[in-house]
């Protein structure tokens, strides 16, 4: 502590170390949050359902997605990344997950929403197994923090079925 430079260096190092601890505490405080999200997806229409030139089935859907994810936001949340995946089983794959829509929710105010949309990404099967297929639509979310650990969870909504014949 005998010179200006020595004291300035010691102070800066200690301040940055303490900042690291503060960020760790902020991240740990996220564990205290017990969220209660809710969501609902309605398939309004199957726009078309074809077998592509390469032999793979493809579906185009229009959905109504409504959700209340406000309880997932904490003081240490930067944004929420959500996506909807269609999940089903085929003879060749035990589990298929196809992402059909996603969004970034930047703040708590935007977390309670309702959207009418067609699928943002193509719903294509590996093969032609989709006729009459029963599938789940699962809403996944990733809570991205300002500092620290990211949490991810999901909500499964079962009971959707594709038509038996191509349209």
């Amino acid at each position, binding site marked *: 502590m005998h010179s*200006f430079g020595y004291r300035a260096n010691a102070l800066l190092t200690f301040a940055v170390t*303490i*900042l690291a601890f503060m960020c760790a505490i902020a991240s740990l405080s996220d564990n205290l949050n017990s969220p209660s999200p809710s969501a609902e997806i309605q398939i309004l229409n199957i726009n078309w359902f074809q077998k592509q030139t390469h032999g793979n089935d493809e579906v185009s859907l229009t959905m109504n997605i409504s959700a209340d994810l406000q309880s997932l936001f904490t003081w240490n949340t930067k944004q929420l990344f959500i996506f909807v995946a269609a999940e089903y089983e085929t003879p060749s794959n035990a589990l298929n997950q196809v992402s059909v829509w996603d969004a970034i929710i930047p703040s708590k105010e935007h977390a309670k929403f309702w959207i009418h949309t067609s699928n943002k990404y193509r719903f294509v099967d590996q093969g032609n197994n989709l006729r009459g297929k029963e599938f789940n639509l699962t809403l996944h979310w990733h809570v991205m923090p300002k500092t620290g650990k990211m949490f991810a969870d999901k909500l499964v909504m079962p009971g959707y079925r594709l038509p038996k014949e191509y349209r």
Partner: protein
Amino acid sequence: MDWQGQKLAEQLMQIMLLAFAVVAVATGYVIGSFQMMIMIYAGGVVLTTLITVPNWPFFNCNPLNWLDPTEAQKHPKPQQSVVSKKKSTKKVVPYRITLSDSPLSLSSEDDIMFLEIG
């Protein structure tokens, strides 16, 4: 700064930074604003820097007793009485020497010697 002042500066810095950090985290959590936590802590770091880093007078309350100047004068450093060995411009002047002087460059012409100075 004296020794006591240095210790005070170090302790003050650590206590102040920790205190501001605790206040910042608590306030940020209760209000629900990460931004506020960072602002309070940054303000605390600046304040701590202003108080502990510059050499304020209150850090020098127990000054060290350095040796008195009159003591030093009683034991002066020895004067230099020889020619300096620098290779700058050399002047040659006549100089009469006795044998008890320190070595000089000599030219052997009668009893007139030449002294290189400079």
